[in-house]
């Protein structure tokens, strides 16, 4: 089950990393490295994705919003690799540039979850949910948080 959840959560992150159903529509033809980086992260090739995204940020013309999206992708890739601290730094930077980028909150929530910082993870996923209420990634990460933070109890009563 744990393995299933991990796979499910990574799938959510990869989906988040892709930024949009077609990442090229976000990064455009003028930012081919960023687009290729997003595609690589979505395909699970995190190291390639990180390298291409960093190259794109260094060499391609990006608006603050695009830069925020690229940083959120770096956050997702590092979180998927289990490098939560690095991921959080990238997400912090992304949120600072674009406070309405729900993927940065969602990715940072997952990174906090990895570190066992459930209050921070909950706060971030709440913000993400307020920005994108229907996003399945958010439901997935909230499920992971609930699993760690909610204590189940069943009370039984005999009727006779």
């Amino acid at each position, binding site marked *: 089950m744990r393995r299933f959840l991990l796979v499910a959560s990574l799938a959510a992150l990869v989906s988040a990393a892709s930024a949009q159903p077609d990442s090229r529509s976000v990064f455009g033809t003028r930012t081919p490295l960023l687009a290729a980086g997003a595609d690589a992260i979505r395909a699970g090739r995190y190291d390639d994705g990180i390298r291409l995204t960093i190259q794109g940020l260094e060499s391609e013309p990006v608006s603050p919003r695009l830069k925020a999206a690229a940083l959120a992708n770096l956050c997702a890739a590092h979180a998927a690799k289990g490098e939560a601290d690095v991921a959080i730094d990238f997400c912090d930077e992304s949120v600072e540039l674009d406070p309405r980028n729900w993927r940065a909150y969602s990715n940072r929530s997952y990174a906090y979850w990895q570190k066992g910082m459930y209050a921070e993870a909950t706060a971030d996923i709440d913000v993400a949910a307020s920005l994108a209420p229907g996003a399945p990634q958010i439901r997935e990460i909230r499920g992971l948080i609930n699993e760690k*933070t909610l204590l189940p*109890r069943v009370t039984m009563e*005999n009727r006779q």
Partner: protein
Amino acid sequence: MSASAARRGLCFTAAAVALLAAATAPPDGAAHEAEAWPVGVWSCLLYGTSGDLRFYLELAGHGAARIARATETEKGEWRSLGVWRRARDRIEFDDPLNGRFFVADGRRADLGGTWLGSGDRGGWWCTPTAYAVDDEPPSIAGLLPVLVPAVMASPRYPLSAIREAKEGRTVSCFAVTGAGEILRPEVVETTDDVFRGPTLEAVAGSRYRSWGSDDEALPACRSFTFELRAGG
């Protein structure tokens, strides 16, 4: 109120119930068939917020329904409930005296379901007895056994429900043999189907202390409340 006025009141109630039954019975008039399920004498349990009650229920082939709680049983009497009726997949009857409307799912092997009163509601479950319709009520001894759980298995809280922060409640009813075995457990109420499987698994893993002979069975129910609290 004088005795004659009370009788008139009862007659009026019975007439009203009969009219209601006529209005709700299937048009083919085949609402009741002698000897067909659920015709017979049943040992029943009623549960609700105001408490639990054991009683006998007689459903006759001609449509009459009668009840005997401990007080009536001790006197060897039945109290009339009017008529029972079959409506699609349901069995229905009223208890005008207590203002309760009983509904049973006609697709179940056992007889039982839910009841609705004024400001109260709950469930009921019955096991068949060997007694014949039109006899006196069975012995009061059959209403008195206390079922003592020997093993109460706890249901697992479904992981999917935890992840979705779902809480809920279920009630399962079943027959308990004289040896304490649980037979034919059913989920009578559930707030969410996700709790149905764990409820039935828990009931199947439970048993009671033996209380009588092997050929007897008593109805019993168990409610389960699934709750989550913050704690991690």
